[in-house]
């Protein structure tokens, strides 16, 4: 069987809150294949944010195994993990999370810097990516000088910087109005068509149903339902 690009096997994440233990994620199984558009959906407190951190290898599991491109991330040290994360996963955050003292172009160049890409290559690739998200005329602007939608498009360009296999988007439209949100989603869909794997975390069923191909519905730290779009209809799968 195809090992999958990202795989969570019986993963659990517990937090200590004083005396009690909070089981944010408890026995979760998720498998993402190359080229998928996956939505991890759930209401707040369902454990979807914890799930996203685990999928993005930003956090380590209490129990279970997480595989990134066939490698168990538990076996990697912090530095290797940072390198792999930088190369394989592009993050898009709800808060955009651009670095305020760098221009749009420099923000896009930053992930490539940590991968040791030469300055010339970084510059030309950043320009290309910003053109792709239709921000050629905003390259030398600082985040503070950009609108929310523009900032999120810079973040998308940054996520694509190292040509990752997976784009991990956490509520990508959460801080945007409907129209700008649509535009951002259109970009994500476009990248998916071009072969990128997209994992989107959202609380919004409409967003998930409209754009994703696979939905993991999360409740109480477990996958409650797995749905797949077949001929425009949602069907459960195993």
């Amino acid at each position: 069987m195809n090992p999958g690009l990202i795989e969570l096997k019986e993963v659990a994440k517990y937090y200590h809150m004083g005396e009690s233990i909070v089981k944010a994620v408890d026995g979760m199984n998720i498998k993402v294949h190359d080229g998928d558009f996956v939505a991890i959906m759930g209401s707040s407190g369902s454990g979807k944010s914890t799930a996203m951190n685990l999928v993005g290898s930003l956090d380590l599991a209490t129990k279970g195994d997480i595989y990134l491109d066939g490698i168990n991330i538990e076996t990697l040290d912090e530095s290797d993990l940072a390198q792999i994360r930088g190369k394989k996963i592009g993050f898009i955050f709800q808060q955009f999370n651009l670095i305020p003292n760098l221009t749009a172009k420099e923000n896009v160049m930053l992930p490539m810097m940590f991968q040791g890409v030469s300055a010339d290559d970084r510059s030309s690739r950043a320009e290309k990516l910003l053109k792709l998200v239709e921000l050629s005329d905003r390259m030398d602007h600082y985040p503070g000088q950009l609108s929310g939608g523009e900032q999120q498009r810079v973040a998308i360009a940054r996520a694509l910087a190292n040509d990752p296999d997976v784009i991990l988007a956490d509520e990508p439209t959460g801080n945007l109005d409907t129209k700008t949100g649509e535009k951002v989603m259109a970009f994500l869909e476009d990248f998916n068509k071009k072969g990128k794997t997209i994992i989107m975390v959202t609380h919004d069923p409409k967003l998930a149903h409209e754009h994703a191909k696979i939905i993991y519905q999360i409740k109480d730290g477990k996958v409650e339902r797995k749905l797949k779009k077949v001929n425009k209809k949602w069907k459960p799968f195993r």
Partner: protein
Amino acid sequence: MIRKEIINYSLRNLVHKKSRSILTIFSILIGITAIFIFISFGLGLYNYVNDFKTSSSADKITVMPKGMSAPGMDESFALTDKDISAIEKTSGVYQATGLYSKVAEVKQSSIIRYVFLLGFDPDKPLIMELSNVKVIEGRMLKSGDDGKVILGYNYRIENKIFSKAYSLNDEIEIQGKKLKIIGFMQEVGSPQDDSQIYTTTDFLPSLYPVAKVNYAMAVARVDISNIKQVVENVEKELRKERGLEEGKEDFFVQSFQEMLDTYATALNVIIYFVVLIALVSVIVSAINTANTMVTSVLERVKEIGVIKSIGARNSEIFFIFLFESGFLGFVGGVIGVIIGFNFTLVTGAFLAKLGWSFLAPSYSVYLFLGCILFATLTGAISGAVPAYQASKIRPVDALRYE
């Protein structure tokens, strides 16, 4: 991995937080400026003392009246020619000579000044070797130089002692007599020494016809290898000569070496003390730098999370913060040294103008480099702890941080 880009990234941060960076640099440079000033003046004093130690003064001892008064002021104490010859006969003493030291009235137009007039034997110029001052213009006194004097440095300068400066071969009115100037001494650096007048022991008594003039002190050149023993021998011989019991001497014998050692010890204590004060200010500025760095880390936890999520290694984050604090230290050090250097130049020149030229700053390459290195290390070390903590923050925690 340390890359140009990461350094660039740090610099961008520092520029972005301009006022914070400037304040941090300021707090470091105050400490460094203080250290630089203290050490350069301390070094100057140290060199001044060291010059004496290796000079012709080292093999001299002096015999002076006991008590607080300066030689020549206490008329009740007198050294006679018999005393001098007793000193000269003591084992370990090569040569001894008596010195007159009197207060003299010097007049220019209607202005009168009272200065010290020193009479020494030109054939035994031990006092000149002791004080280590040389004639810079004209010539030294020689025996038979009646009515001739050598003046201290300050007489050559307008408005220092008198409004008009004296030059070689001029006449100067001392004790109501016109005397010929045959030379000037080099600058010593203290107003009293630089206003002194020198003449011969043969001639000096004729300026004081009323009273009998006695030697105010004696100087002897001695065997330096056993200077302590020589001092004791001289004390013993003088006691015998003057008929005094041990412990009731009206004179005291001091070797120049001993005097310098005491002086140097006292000076070292002062130097250590000022360096200590400067160190305290450096510690304060280090704490301030650490404080700035901790705040800076807390402020940027989220940024740390972001750059971690896009591939920054712990080591790279550590380096970013370490470089930032080290760089602030370096800049503070450079500016501090520049300010300190200029300050010592100005105050050194000012002190020299006041006649305190022995308080001259002294510099060495190590002082400059040391201060800058010290500032850089202070910055780096005070930034290291928060930098290490910053690098250890887990991306998930950092991203959640608001």
